[in-house]
């Protein structure tokens, strides 16, 4: 999930919409410091939108206040969403152009054709 929060589509295309065919749950060591640092660098609204779109059974607050950023339950939820949900098969869709970028074996293919780059 983290990767999809960083990538952009053809020009400005962000956030990419996620169409997941197969989601895997992996297990990653929980490290609250790491999650706190990542929180500074993600687009929270885009992430929350993706969680809702995908229908993941995780509840996220509408905004992240200073206090919630130190809340253990919240950090564990973020850990799970960012690092433990892996989209194995599916696609990322550019919001501007509708261009689809396939995800295969967990790796998104963001290669553009020459003709797509202006």
């Amino acid at each position, binding site marked *: 999930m983290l990767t999809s929060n960083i*990538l952009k589509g053809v020009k400005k295309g962000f956030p990419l919409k996620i169409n997941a065919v197969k989601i895997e749950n992996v297990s990653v060591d929980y490290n609250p410091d790491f999650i706190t640092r990542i929180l500074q660098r993600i687009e929270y609204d885009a992430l929350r939108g993706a969680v809702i779109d995908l229908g993941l059974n995780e509840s996220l607050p509408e905004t992240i206040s200073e206090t919630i950023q130190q809340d253990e339950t919240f950090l564990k939820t973020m850990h799970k969403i960012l690092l433990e949900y892996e989209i194995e098969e599916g696609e990322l869709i550019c919001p501007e152009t509708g261009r689809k970028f396939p995800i295969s074996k967990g790796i998104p293919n963001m290669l553009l054709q020459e003709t797509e780059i202006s």
Partner: protein
Amino acid sequence: MFPTPDLSHFTRNDYNEIYEPDADSFLLLDALELKLNKILEQKPFIILEFGCGSGLATTFIAKHFCPTSCLFFAIDMNPYACYSTRRTFHQNNVHNKHCLNIIQCNLGDPLIDRLSSKIDLILFNPPYVPTETSDVKEVIERTYAGGKQGIEVIEKAIEQASRLLSSKGLFYMVALEENNFDTLKELGNQVGLNIEIVLKRRTCIERLFVVEFQRN
């Protein structure tokens, strides 16, 4: 000397699809080790490798340069290299401690907007061999074909690095004598990066060196 990451999971067949680590790959690892203290002082958090291939350099950094959990981005145009990088990361047991994001793309195109001025460490063993063009189709050819003077891909990488590096970020890159140090220096200057030679080595067929770029 740090041990080289375990690559025993690869077979001959794998090396038909990805670049087999060679003198240039090991020179990059040796140069990184020479700069160990400088890199550790920066406490790198976000690390990017252009053209990750087997995943050797990314895994080496994850194993020896990152006492706390880090965020890695590894990119390659070749899907087989993307999968291979993940295999090497797992084979060396660094996947539980660090977060690795692998993306099949051309240099850092889809990352630049979001990661601008955020990357602490960039690694690149580029296609540096002078060839007629760097626009080649064969997967293995792409690992070395550098176009005119061997710097067509290098030039783009330097420009992207200048946008991606954090204020004290470091960019380490392998180069060939024919790439010409003064040309690389000029390319760096044009985008506000200083350059320094870290290590030089002569192999039976090539004179190689590793450079360090940093914002001036």
